[in-house]
């Protein structure tokens, strides 16, 4: 009887151990399988991103959340370095987006994107600039009369949710984390204005854009200015509306300047080569060659007269029956 009891006990222990081992196998298998499926999904999201970027580049249209779904919730971490920029999906797959100038939040969890593309002309085409944001983003624009006409000329596509308020005015309460407040005003926001925004929209990213000087200022959570830079062209100014990290914005501005520098140097090289092709003695390219060299050395935001002069010189070449440079 005692032996029989021991035998039964042994059977139970055996069944329990064997069951635990089999269960452990299936559990490990399930977790491994889930991990692999997540990897696959991250890769597919990277493919979706790549396809949509190409779509934007070829159509130059804006994509709303319905046109740019991701098929699930994903976290994106965007990193910009001097030569490269990367988009890491769910801390797993890293997509190299170095070929694109992409303005978007540094860290974003979303199921879809709103996206837009604009060609940066200064005065010639330099590159495309991409803008991505969360579909729940709400832009609050605070404008003065100068800012009002600047905002009208931005031609922001309708897919973006933006409400414009005349300064001074109080903004409606908004508790969401995707609210963005931008001042398009000649003078920076005052401390009481910033304090009022913090009260009504506590998670808002606050930016000031000086529309005449093309200057951008970011404010931190204590409403202190943390970043201030002059930028070249409304396409780069617009980038501030889609960035939430001043350092990252600064990095992208530097990368855009590198793209500008490369394009300008190519045009100045072209201006050096063009005289070899022309028999027309009126076609002199020395002036425009030097103007281009000067243009790339000057701070872009203060080069409007040189820009105008370059356009005139290029037009003059055409008027003389010569090849234009750009």
């Amino acid at each position, binding site marked *: 009887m005692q*032996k029989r009891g021991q*035998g039964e006990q*042994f*059977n139970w222990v*055996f069944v329990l151990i*064997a069951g635990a*081992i*089999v269960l452990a*196998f299936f559990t*490990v*298998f399930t977790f*491994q*399988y889930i991990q*692999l499926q997540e*990897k*696959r999904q991250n*890769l597919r999201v*990277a*493919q979706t991103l*790549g396809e949509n970027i*190409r779509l934007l*580049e*070829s159509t130059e249209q804006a994509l709303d959340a319905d046109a740019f779904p991701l098929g699930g919730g994903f976290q994106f971490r965007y990193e910009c370095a001097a*030569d490269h920029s990367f988009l890491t999906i769910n801390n797993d797959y890293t997509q190299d987006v*170095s*070929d694109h100038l992409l303005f978007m939040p540094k860290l974003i969890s979303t199921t879809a994107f709103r996206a837009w593309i604009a*060609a940066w*002309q200064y*005065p*010639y*085409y*330099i*590159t495309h600039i991409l803008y991505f944001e969360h579909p729940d983003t709400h832009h609050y624009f605070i404008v003065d009369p100068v800012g009002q006409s600047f905002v009208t000329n931005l031609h922001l596509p309708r897919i973006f949710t933006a409400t414009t308020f005349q300064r001074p005015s109080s903004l409606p309460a908004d508790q969401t984390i995707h609210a963005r407040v931008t001042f398009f005003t000649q003078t920076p926001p005052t401390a009481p204005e910033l304090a009022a925004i913090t009260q009504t929209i506590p998670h808002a990213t606050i930016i000031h854009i000086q529309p005449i000087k093309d200057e951008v200022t970011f404010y931190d959570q204590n409403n202190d200015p943390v970043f201030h830079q002059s930028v070249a062209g409304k396409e780069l100014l617009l980038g501030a509306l889609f960035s939430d990290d001043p350092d990252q914005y600064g990095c992208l501005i530097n990368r855009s300047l590198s*793209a500008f520098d*490369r*394009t300008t*140097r*190519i*045009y100045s*090289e*072209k201006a*050096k*080569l*063009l005289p*070899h*092709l022309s028999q027309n003695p009126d076609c002199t390219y020395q002036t425009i060659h030097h103007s281009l060299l000067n243009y790339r050395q000057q701070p872009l935001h203060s080069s409007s007269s040189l820009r105008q002069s370059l*356009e005139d010189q*290029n*037009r003059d070449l*055409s008027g003389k029956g010569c*090849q*234009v440079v*750009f």
Partner: protein
Amino acid sequence: MNSKAQLQTQETILVLFIVVVIILLGIAFFLRYQRQSILDERTTYERTQFQHMILTLPEDAAVRCSRFGQKENCVDTLKILAAAPFFQNDPDRYGTMNITFTQLYPAVPSVSCTTGTLTDCGVWTLYTQRPEHIRTTLKTVTPLSLYRPESDHYVLGLLTIERYTS
């Protein structure tokens, strides 16, 4: 009875052991297959990205035609020569690759165009970096419109991109 019961238990353990081994092998095989399929998908995606380069490169401001600052749908052959040194100095970005534009029609001598030979030539190399030993070559081509500033004419050309692995 006692030894019969022992034998039965040993049999059960053996059967269970075999079943567990079979399950383990199955799981290992399945997971390995899944991993490989993800790797294959990744390789296919990277290959697709390379093939898309043929669509994006002619859009690059470095080579694209422009007139009074506005983009045009062609590649400026003079800009290829002007841009080549910038591409050549960026091997980190382009790797082991060969990017060439060739004039197809009207036919011209298949002579390489350089800053010293701007006319009577029909091949422009934007970037070239060939490894010593080439294991595989991935090649993609597309026809496009080339602009020749010396004659102010648009000609039919071909863009060829080759990527090498060593």
